[in-house]
């Protein structure tokens, strides 16, 4: 996967994750262009399109569009389910997620994504494992992680 964008129906970017090195200008330009392209498409149209030299897979959930740009050889349908799994993860974490959750807790949205996808590839597809990792991190908030002993204790408590 080259990059993933989340944006609203008004075209506001809510999350952007780039898995290829690009300059800030280039990212903004690509993002703007792609958002316009997708917002210009009608509902019920195909979720896939060719865009520049990439394949784009997108899906709308309520007011948010989730959009992935993938490589020629990547699988479109499984990418749709990557999107869905990410939505499920957000949903489970926030409890019926809405756009506002992602706006106000944008850092969490990034953390969850990093647990699920890394470098553009699936790292962990199990919903339980991803959420466990995130919740563990949340528990660590105020725990001073000084030594491994402390940590493993927390882990024992959590499990």
């Amino acid at each position, binding site marked *: 996967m080259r990059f993933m964008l989340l944006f609203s129906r008004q075209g506001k970017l809510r999350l952007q994750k780039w898995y290829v090195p690009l300059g800030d200008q280039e990212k*903004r330009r690509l993002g703007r262009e792609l958002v316009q392209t997708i917002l210009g498409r009608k509902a019920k149209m195909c979720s896939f399109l060719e865009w520049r030299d990439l394949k784009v897979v997108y899906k709308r959930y309520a007011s948010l569009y989730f959009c992935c740009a993938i490589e020629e050889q990547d699988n*479109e349908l*499984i990418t749709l389910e990557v999107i869905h799994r990410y939505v499920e993860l957000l949903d489970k974490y926030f409890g019926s997620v809405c756009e506002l959750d992602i706006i106000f*807790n944008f850092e969490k949205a990034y953390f969850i994504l990093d647990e699920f996808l890394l470098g553009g590839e699936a790292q962990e597809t199990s919903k339980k*494992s991803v959420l466990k990792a995130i919740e563990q991190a949340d528990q*660590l908030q105020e725990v001073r992680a000084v030594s491994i002993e402390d940590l493993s204790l927390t882990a024992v408590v959590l499990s």
Partner: protein
Amino acid sequence: MPAVSKGDGMRGLAVFISDIRNCKSKEAEIKRINKELANIRSKFKGDKALDGYSKKKYVCKLLFIFLLGHDIDFGHMEAVNLLSSNKYTEKQIGYLFISVLVNSNSELIRLINNAIKNDLSSRNPTFMCLALHCIANVGSREMAEAFAGEIPRILVAGDTMDSVKQSAALCLLRLYKASPDLVLMGEWTSRVVHLLNDQHMGVVTAAISLITCLSQKNPDEFKTCVSLAVSRLSRIVSSASTDLQDYTYYFVPAPWLSCKLLRLLQCYPPPEDGAVKGRLVECLETILNKAQEPPKSKKVQHSNAKNAILFEAISLIIHYDSEPNLLVRACNQLGQFLQHRETNLRYLALESMCTLASSEFSHEAVKTHIETVINALKTERDVSVRQRAADLLYAMCDRSNAKQIVAEMLSYLETADYSIREEMVLKVAILAEKYAVDYSWYVDTILNLIRIAGDYVSEEVWYRVIQIVINRDDVQGYAAKTVFEALQAPACHENMVKVGGYILGEFGNLIAGDPRSSPLVQFNLLHSKFHLCSVPTRALLLSAYIKFINLFPETKATIQEVLRSDSQIRNSDVELQQRAVEYLKLSSIASTDVLATVLEEMPPFPERESSILAKLKKKKGPGVVPVSELEDGKREGGELNGGGDRGPDSAMSSTPSPSADLLGLRSAAPVSAAAPSAGSLLVDVFSESGAGGPAAAVNDDGFLRFVCKNNGVLFENQLLQIGIKSEYRQNLGELPGFSASAVPPLSVPSGLGDGDLNVQTKPVEPLVEGGAQVQQVLNIECITDFSEAPQLNIKFRYGGALQNITLKLPVTINKFFQPTEMAATDFFQRWKQLSQPQQEAQKIFKANHGMDTEVLKAKLLGLGTALLENVDPNPENYVCAGVVQTKSQQVGVLLRLEPNAQAQMYRLTLRSSKDTVSKRLCDLLAEQF
């Protein structure tokens, strides 16, 4: 205020975000942001040391501002400070900031790398994962330098936690993609392959992405992954939907992993081991069978996951292209999807069928779906789906259905989306040409194209129709009649006027017998369009007029009057004015004979591959045009595609300057059409050099540059550069040719065609990295003298598309020269001995490269002969002697080059004991001076 505030909830951040959201205008937003930036800056610069929480909060605000699309030029240092915090969330925010706002500031990179190093060695899995995520997110070269050695160790260490392994695998993948040279293969590689056997499904899922990428680049080293992947796949495919617990997704067992396993297998040919292959075929059959079973859930996620695996399996079947049974089953399955109610599935089925159409096993099966596909082209509501349908029609087209498909595409063009018209036009033009049985159909089709979508008909397309009409006399009369009729339309496209003007100028006489299309009627018809046309078209029409004067003397007076009118002869455009003046003069002073010679009918074009094809390839970029058409062209033996397949760069050569002179009557000196190389564009708009046969057209220039030298760059385009280094000893030559690619990755199995040479190649690595060089050594033995150079066919895949470049290897007969020193008496004695007419070859030609003595000497030495001083009585002349060493015989050669500085001409004489050698050398050398 936030709807939800999970975790530690930074209140200040939430307030700030609310404020931004409440801004009514962009200006208000910027104002609020500037206020915040000033506040943060003062906090960071203030005397009071900030606590970790405040630092985290401000860094997070900066991040938010950056993500809104504003530039951030401070705060990096504070973020780096957070990395060494021992509070997890502070560290986490620090890493997030670094990941999003990478800064190439070297001082910071050092600090960041230090913090990462500490976390990696902390043996705290949570911290290790954070550090690995950061490396994977940034993926810079500096990070690769610092960690490319460490991460493989973490990945394969026995005591590494599963979650860390997962991160390490994908982190390494990112570094490998960004800086492959820094990730060194080693003992760890074999252990990575065995991660495919790992107990933990998450580890396998992460590791397989890495393994796939590494296998693509180093297939041999990772070969063992094939059998491991097959057995893993087989276990998943045969498992019940609940066996894999949380890795089952909507009743589909491990869809991500299954897809990746199938993708990994596509890096390799079918397994050689019968048992492994049997097991794999069984898996593929099971996957195809499952597609027919009733769904276990009505949810779209279930069918998507299931079909994702199915499509990946079909890709593998197509990749193997060796199991007719599976290919036909795949085709039938896709056929069902063509009528599925899900648009996504119809789209993918059309796309996948495109590749199936190029397999000989399934081509016929694909064709049975033609009606459905045509229907899709007409009725699909989404342009991207219609585009796929058009692609598929193009891919499934052959002689049996060409007329139907071309007709459907033409009628679709009338309503087609603007975005795809140009491509559709190219495709129609290519199909019409490739499968034309009678050329009147071809002419009709192209004229229809111009009528329907004239704006989208590029120069290549209308040049091509003219080229074909010129080359085929059976269609010329029909073409003249048809364009004449087409021009009757009150509003006809300018491209039609161009084609019409050209064809009537050449072949108007074929329809002049009919009083309805008498010469004057033809002329008036053309001239009625004149004033509506652009300058290049007008220039073309003027040339057509002068051709009329030659064809039909009765039109002379009328046309001269037109040429003489102020609007022509005083036209503000110099090109038009010049033509008017010259044509007028030519028609008044030249005798009929001279006129007839100058304005003779165009000679046939050298036949070669259509440049339209190259244009389409260029337009679509790699990977979209099915490879089949190249092979198809050969299989069907399309009469007009005579030339070899060409590299992607050839389209450029066929774009002439704006004032393209179609009749070859350019500038001051009107040249006879019989002298094709004199700068006229239409003579050969399809090739970069007028010389040489069609197959050699690709690199004759490059080739000829090597006659007198042994090293240099033979060929270069956007994708690769091919250089040559060569050494010759007697009848043996060694060419360690090197090729360097500019864009990754490509594989270069290359083939050589040889005749009187024995050419041996050493195999090369199948993959060339971007920017890397591979060397292929060719050993050549000259068996007997030869005139055709061996051809180098380079086939490689780039971005999924097969690229094919045919080059003449610069191996010429003179390379096998042994210089022979001799005195003047010896020379002339031998010269006289070789006095039979067939032993001598002579050419007189104009100097093309100046006549500098030193350059000439260098060239003659580079030729491989001995340059004999004080032999020729005239010191201006050069004489050389050498022996061509072949395995079967030795051929003595004498050469004499007589420059005439005044006339800037040379006379070149070669004498040798073998007539073919004299002739070949003479031909080669005549191009060199």
